[in-house]
């Protein structure tokens, strides 16, 4: 059955309303502080170590993102756990919040489809996350410029920009997951707890569990098969995909994210950096994986929302 009109009618209105809600909310204040503190902590930790290494490194600026100094983790490690928290924080009550405020039926009684409401909420939350991440990225680069006194090269900026894009895609996965749970669970507290629980499982437990599962399911003595299976299983976690992307983007000498075969080393100058586009190709499957996971989770939430009875 074909419905009249565009499913996106009212999308812009919903996006603007949600953006204004996010930017004026207490959550945003917390996010802003998190951004500032993360940038300061990451840059401070990295600068101390970078000063000790050679200034002749052609990718000196990228060390800002990857260098850790005990007890502080590196900037990308910060991102690894900060981004899911931010995304879950913005998405866990997107739909059930409307139910609980009893605004859903009133809003859906206006000339607007559910598609526009859900997608508008997703876009607004992702835009809010993007603004926070861009601010964080600019802060780190700005502080790095001031403290290192060396401007980044073109390829460094391209890699840093790609890191930003991948981080936004990574945020999209957790946001779509949080919105899926906000559609399934009527209580925001339940949605938040389940999303956080799944994040902890996928980030901490799943990578450790995947080799054991690979051994249990693969009846082969071939170590390579076991390693590949374990890696494929581990890649079900968005955190693993993000970590691999970071590896390929910020460590230009990374030639592969899987097992290294002799054939891959033929003619290679060990330790030499790959050009930007080659690094992008190495990370491409992981980037596609993150985007695909976002789409799948959003579609799951969309289907659940479409099938829901709107009584509140």
């Amino acid at each position, binding site marked *: *059955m074909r419905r009249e009109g565009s499913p996106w009618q009212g999308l812009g209105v919903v996006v603007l309303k949600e953006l204004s*809600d996010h930017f004026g909310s207490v959550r945003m204040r917390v996010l802003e502080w998190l951004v500032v503190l993360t940038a300061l902590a990451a840059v401070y930790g990295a600068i101390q170590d970078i000063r000790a290494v050679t200034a002749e490194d052609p990718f000196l600026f990228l060390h800002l993102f990857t260098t850790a100094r005990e007890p502080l983790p590196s900037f990308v490690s910060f991102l690894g756990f900060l981004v899911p928290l931010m995304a879950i924080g913005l998405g866990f009550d997107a739909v059930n919040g409307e139910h609980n405020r009893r605004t859903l*039926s009133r809003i859906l009684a*206006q000339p607007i489809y559910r598609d526009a409401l859900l997608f508008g909420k997703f876009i607004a939350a992702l835009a809010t996350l993007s603004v926070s991440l861009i601010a964080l990225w600019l802060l780190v680069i700005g502080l790095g410029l001031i403290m290192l006194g060396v401007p980044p090269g073109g390829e460094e900026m391209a890699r840093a920009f790609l890191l930003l894009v991948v981080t936004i895609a990574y945020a999209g996965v957790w946001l779509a997951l949080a919105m899926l749970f906000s559609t399934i669970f009527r209580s925001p507290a339940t949605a938040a707890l389940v999303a956080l629980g799944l994040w902890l499982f996928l980030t901490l437990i799943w990578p450790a569990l995947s080799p054991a599962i690979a051994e249990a399911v693969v009846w082969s003595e071939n170590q390579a098969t076991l390693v590949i299976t374990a890696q494929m299983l581990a890649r079900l976690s968005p955190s693993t995909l993000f970590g691999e992307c970071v590896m390929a983007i910020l460590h230009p000498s990374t030639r592969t994210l899987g097992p290294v075969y002799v054939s891959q080393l033929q003619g290679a100058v060990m330790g030499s950096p790959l050009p930007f586009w080659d690094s992008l190709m190495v990370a491409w499957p992981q980037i596609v994986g993150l985007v695909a996971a976002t789409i799948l989770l959003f579609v799951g939430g969309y289907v659940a929302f479409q099938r829901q009875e709107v009584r509140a």
Partner: protein
Amino acid sequence: MSNDVVEAQGLTRRYGTAYAVRDVSFTVGAGEIFGLLGPNGAGKTTTILMLLGLSEISAGKARVFGHDPMREPLAVKRLIGYLPDTVGFYDNISAADNLHYTGRLMGFPLADRKKRIAAALERVGLAEVANKKVGTFSRGMRQRLGLAEIVMKDARIAILDEPTNGLDPQASVDLLDLIRSLKAQGVTIILSSHLLDRVQSVCDRVALFNGGRIALMGTVEALGREVLGGGYVVEVEADGGKSIADRLAALPGVRTVSEPAAGRWRMTCDRDMRGEAAAVVVAAGGHLHQLSLDRPSLETIYTRYFQGQGPQREEVPHAA
């Protein structure tokens, strides 16, 4: 040409094997106030949601100004203003900003929106608190803000789900006055409620839901005749006169006459027959002391219907 703006034919909503609404048919005419009554879970809200295109129609069809709510929900939603049971607003923004949001969803340009919002808030008596956050509003004020949204939208049909639920008596009276003023403006109103006396005071016709079906439908007077066997009760007190009971029973329109005490007669009739009753007493040579009328009460009809007693039978009909 039909004057009906809402038509439901065999409307059915099924969840698996359970029926929330089953084979419901009714029409609502332009400018009419149509009441949906029934106990909780009877299917009133599901019927409303199907008319709005917010719930799937399993079988049957609905038309709102000729539009199918399933195929043309946007056209239907442009025409309908909906006040849900326990209406919710965004508490952290003002009343005016809440209306601006729905106004933008309606596609009203800013200048037009401002005029509409100011006029609507004035109409429902919330102009002075237009810029206050809705979080500070009482339940009655929220209900009025819900009506302001309908006024702002210039809806041709207002669907009000339990609008007086939880309101204090004065707030209820004010809200019902607002509903009457909407009707006076030509707005068709579908009203769902279980507060029967309030429904009775504003509705032109009602449909009584039971178990997902419409059990009874019509004007309160017609339902009174159907369920109570004559909805009007006229009580006559007189002395003297001969054969007053027989004379009263012979009047066309009188269903039953009983004599609960000496010199006191109780008639159930199809209409207000106080004039004819007084004439009978005088013609019989009696002296009339008192004449009173009880209109058919929706509450009595409702209670009687759900008690399964059907039409009143305890009094012996005198009329042929």
